[in-house]
């Protein structure tokens, strides 16, 4: 247990060791999460790397990452547990054939063998605490949020046919939200909070260097500056860090070492960053040139 806990001093290095470039704020938040045993709520635009935080956290602790993707209409069945109806039906048939009585059959089919673990139940039944990522919690309904809140404070679940399941290990919980709906105060207060913004140019360059093997430092910096200025353009969807990495990989693959080298290729490959037709028409080659003039 001792070597698993993060200290404020070593956390950045440990995150770096698993390929995550952390700034001071997120490193502190992750350390606090461990120290206070509280869930961490990450908010921020799509593509800023919220989910990556959970992945990095799991990697740091060499823990399993259990992910619950939220969506409208997500209910407890899909999130917590379900009975395996087909198997239950089969079992009933077989046992009836063997002449067992109804009570015995019922007891049998509501045993753990027929229970399908969904992410939330799985997260509290592991021997080693996993990292539970509750992704885009703002998409789930309010009722589900209330249920989640209960689970996050008690870490136990009651299954009517089986009894109460208590957590064997308390998972580290990371929630993410894109802000499509206001989360309840209760949930917010339960969690530590971190607003994830697009990384600074230096940090994004570092991310590129870590994730795209063999890329030049100078090119990584140019890419990061270019992406930063593209984000400042009035686009429908600002490119995320994943898009930056795609673009960097493409440029590296084409053997480009300097953005000024081939303006044509540059403009074409920049479409990696653009995800809507509208934005595409806005980012003309003139715009690309203007931006390039500023950053390179």
């Amino acid at each position, binding site marked *: 247990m001792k070597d698993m806990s993060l200290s404020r001093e070593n956390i950045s290095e440990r995150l770096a060791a698993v390929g995550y470039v952390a700034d001071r704020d997120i490193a*502190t938040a992750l350390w606090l999460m461990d120290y206070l045993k*509280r869930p961490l709520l990450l908010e921020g635009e799509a593509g800023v790397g919220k989910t990556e935080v959970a992945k990095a956290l799991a990697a740091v602790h060499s823990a399993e990452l259990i992910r619950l993707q939220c969506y409208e209409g997500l209910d407890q069945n899909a999130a917590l547990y379900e009975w395996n109806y087909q198997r239950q039906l089969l079992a009933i048939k077989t046992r009836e054939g063997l002449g067992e009585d109804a009570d015995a059959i019922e007891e049998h089919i509501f045993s753990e063998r027929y229970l399908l673990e969904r992410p939330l139940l799985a997260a509290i039944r592991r021997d080693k605490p996993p990292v539970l990522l509750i992704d885009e919690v703002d998409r789930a309904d309010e009722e589900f949020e209330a249920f989640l809140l209960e689970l996050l404070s008690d870490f136990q679940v009651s299954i009517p046919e089986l009894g109460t399941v208590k957590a064997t290990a308390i998972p580290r919980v990371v929630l993410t939200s894109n802000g499509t709906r206001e989360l309840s105060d209760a949930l*917010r207060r339960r969690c530590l909070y971190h607003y994830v913004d697009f990384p600074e140019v230096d940090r994004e360059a570092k991310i590129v260097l870590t994730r795209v093997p063999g890329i030049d430092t100078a090119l990584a910096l140019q890419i990061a500056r270019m992406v930063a200025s593209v984000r400042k353009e009035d686009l429908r969807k600002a490119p995320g860090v994943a898009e930056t990495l795609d673009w960097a990989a493409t440029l590296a693959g084409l053997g480009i070492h300097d953005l000024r080298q081939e303006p044509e290729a540059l403009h074409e490959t920049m479409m990696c960053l653009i995800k809507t037709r509208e934005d595409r028409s806005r980012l003309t080659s003139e715009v690309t040139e203007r931006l390039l003039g500023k950053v390179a």
Partner: protein
Amino acid sequence: MAVAAHSRSGDNVGEPMRLKLTAFAHTLRGNGFKVGLAETADALSILVMSAADKPATLEPALRALFCATRSDWERFDEIFEAFWLARGIRQARVLAGAAPEGAAPVRALKDVGPRGGKPGLPDHVERRQDDGGYSVDGRGKREGASRAENLASIDLRYIVNPEEIRDAHALAERLALCPRQFTRRFQQEFGSSPASFVRRMRLDEARQRLSSTDCSVEEVARSVGFSDGDNFRRAFERCFHVAPREYRGRFAAKA
């Protein structure tokens, strides 16, 4: 009783830091942050555990703890700086064991002064600063949209200084509550009226002094704020069912 228990508990966080942190929590509350007892307690425990008392390490920790929305996040730095780096400059220096960067904060100190509501006595460091923190808080509350919310989030255990409870009106005003609201809320929190709570606090303190000092009953009475010995004796006896002198006779020898 909660106040007494808190201020006497011998944990590692110095009293000024505790007060400062709670004052900061209140400043945030005044700015519409939803900061409650749990967060404040957590912040204190972070201080104990990590000695995160330098602004550079304290800030990200408190930010993660005290912010709950994006707008909190965006305003936090400014509030933190105004409170922690500028106005609390002396304290920061003492705690960090190093001079803070630049001379700018001194000017900021002056700037904040008039808003603080209780200008003057700048040299009386600790008490003053805490008062300032509370006052800023009070000001923010008055500006705040919802009084009901302020009321709900007030944690009396942390902000009440027993000396001040005597004056429920003044305290209520500082919290931007009307005296009736304040009294009701106080009653809910502490199970007694402000006045009897204070009396009990003072008697507790007197009891302590009777058993641990050689001061006369008269002196003890005065030292805890009773105007004369007879009043004190009556109150003491009513509360503990024993006369002060007798109490001392029973317990002082053991001390």
